[in-house]
């Protein structure tokens, strides 16, 4: 199987999707500039301005257009350059995309995909955020945040084919992550977690970029004979906890690692479900590793104190095992 980057996996999925005449892409700088992270480079030349639509800086409009097009049978892919800008489109997303199916008696669905990206690296407070939990909080949306090239490609394809609005969350620090993915077209179903690593001592429940950091933490702990099992949730809504619970029933201890603020964050929901459905299997309090609760500092040193690091994951695992 070829080894490709996350960026290449997304490109392959988009090229594949463009075979369907109903699919078009709309977003800022996706055409002439080839998109900020290079995912749609060359698409304008290949598919033309009708289907690769550069939009003005008007996020609400971009998502609104996608919703309307989806309602009349198109399969739009709206790209919001950075998740921070999606705030401007929340009304469109929450009050329209998420609700049209139920408010109009199921007469139409909204089969659109909103591609956007989390990330940081000295981008400062307004450009270094993660709103996974806002999206995942909203019934009516599906929220996907894969970690590997294989899942990126298969789940983007599945998201485009899905009849409901799907928020597809990428990460600026993951576009160069490499992994195996077949050349041919395939889908990976939404709403199914996967076991990313087997181990008997402790369960790490996580998703997106944190899967890779957790793997590094597990490698370090393996030298001390500690076997870490890692569950990659892949989808936040609908949230599949079956794999994590199965693992937790074996290890009896868990650490939840997510790249967002801790209070009321995705890790709170994940930990709550472990407590709720795994109470009698619990042998130690569940630990969480997340952003420190401050607006992201610009200073590099302070930024590194704020984000999740491999060291912090290792420490949390050791503490939970003590």
């Amino acid at each position: 199987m070829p080894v490709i980057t996350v960026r290449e996996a997304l490109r392959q999925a988009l090229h594949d999707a463009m075979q369907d005449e109903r699919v078009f892409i709309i977003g800022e700088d996706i055409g002439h500039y080839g998109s900020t992270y290079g995912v749609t480079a060359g698409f304008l030349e290949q598919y033309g301005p009708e289907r690769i639509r550069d939009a003005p800086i008007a996020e609400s409009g971009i998502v609104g257009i996608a919703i309307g097009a989806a309602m009349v049978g198109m399969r739009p892919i709206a790209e919001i350059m950075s998740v921070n800008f999606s705030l401007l489109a929340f009304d469109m997303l929450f009050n329209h995309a998420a609700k049209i199916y139920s408010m109009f008696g199921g007469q139409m669905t909204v089969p659109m995909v909103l591609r956007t990206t989390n990330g940081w690296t000295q981008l400062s407070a307004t450009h270094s955020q993660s709103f996974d939990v806002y999206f995942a909080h909203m019934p009516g949306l599906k929220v996907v945040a894969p970690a590997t090239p294989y899942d990126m490609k298969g789940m983007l394809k599945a998201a485009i084919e899905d009849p409901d609005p799907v928020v597809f969350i990428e990460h600026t620090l993951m576009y160069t992550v490499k992994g195996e993915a077949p050349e041919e077209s395939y889908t990976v179903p939404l709403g199914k977690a996967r076991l990313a690593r087997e181990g008997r001592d402790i369960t790490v429940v996580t998703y997106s970029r944190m899967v890779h950091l957790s793997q590094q933490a597990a490698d370090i702990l393996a030298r001390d004979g500690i076997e870490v099992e890692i569950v990659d949730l892949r989808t936040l809504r609908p949230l599949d906890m079956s794999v994590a619970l199965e693992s937790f029933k074996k290890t009896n201890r868990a650490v939840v690692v997510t790249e967002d603020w801790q209070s009321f964050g995705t890790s709170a929901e994940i930990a709550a479900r472990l407590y709720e459905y795994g109470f009698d299997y619990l042998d130690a309090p569940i630990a969480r590793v997340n952003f420190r609760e401050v607006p992201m500092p610009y200073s590099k040193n302070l930024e590194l104190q704020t984000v999740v690091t491999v060291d912090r994951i290792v420490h949390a695992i050791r503490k939970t095992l003590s």
Partner: protein
Amino acid sequence: MPDITMPKMGFDMQEGTIVRWLKKPGDEVRRGEPIAEIETDKVTIEIEAFESGTLTEIVVQEGQSAPVNAVIARLDGGNGSQAPAPVAAAPAVSPSAGVSPPPAPLPEAPAPLAESPADIGDIRASPLARRLAREYGIDLRQVRGSGPAGRIVKEDIEAYLSARGGAPAPAPVSPPPPAPAPVSSPPPAPAAVSAPPPAPAAVSPPPPALAAVSVAQPAASAVVPLSNMRKTISRRMLQSWQQFPHIFVSIEVDMGAALALRAQANAGRAREDQVSVNDMVVKACAVALLAFPNLNASYSDEGIILHPTVNIAIAVALESGLMAPVVANCQDRSLGSIARETKRVVALAREGKITPDLLQGGTFTVSNLGMYGIPEFTSIITPPQAASLAVGAIRRTPAFKDDSDEVVAKHLMMLTLSADHRVTDGAEVARFLNELKRLLEQPLALLIG
């Protein structure tokens, strides 16, 4: 002033009833002296004092029930010479966890534990440790916690069990399955939104049927209070029927040869040494189960637990209900030994003298209604076992002789196995029943095996 608490007499005992106090307030009590009779789910048993002193107060009166570890009486520790370690909750008469001997005080029994007869709820222990303690009948006060701030964790329970000498034994035998694993399947198609709203259960009035029953109850009907045994039977049968998907498979056995062998074997033997048809069926089960370990097993979420020994529970009808004393280690017993042990445990059960350890650890059940002339019936599996055999009456029946057209009198008996379909399948049950049939129709094998 040590408290006397309701001891835990078996791993599934939750409460006990004081049948009779053998001491009254003011009486001197010597360590080891019986002080009360209590009735558990299945047995009535005397409990002994763990300390000497004067009985100062009876907290739970005769006829009243109390949960395990609740204070039932108070003892004045005499002149307080040696503040007695409150091992109070350790069972007096019989092991608390079925197979293993009463917990020997742990060598390193730490001082802090002895200090406060803390309520179990005050002890720091993980939910998992608490569950394991419940399942193994362990008093958490006797376990030293190694976690942060002395929290008792799974490892401590395991260490305690191995120090006690009892192998952790048949692991947590099938706890009730946890709440249905949530989620997993994405809602179909456009369903993210379209799932029907949950039924407005909270709002709906209580089902009218209930009200109707309580109102319309005729004056003449009487309510017989549930005995502890009735409650236990009801709880366990409901658990089995709700949680164990039963399959029922029957086979007819020609018992002619077995009856002839039995007549020969019993000729001239004292009545108490005689072998019954049921003993032969039990022996046949023991032999057959060795070849079908999957039916001598228990389902658990972690996997099928195959039990190392064949312990056959014999269902015994009593005036007050039903009991199933266990004939342990049938795999090593001769037919004669099975017959003698069965007589012994059944007699104890009938006389109400059976001890909890003789009611625990069964891996398979044989239930026989032959003496009532019932040709065939089905039984409900006793959790956490995987199968239960229902034995019908031997009927003298006209039947074809072998492959010929000649009709002869045969002694036919119907066996029906109830099996847990999570553990086994119909074909395996069928093969097992055929093996039972073979053993009973060529019964000399039972004398050798």
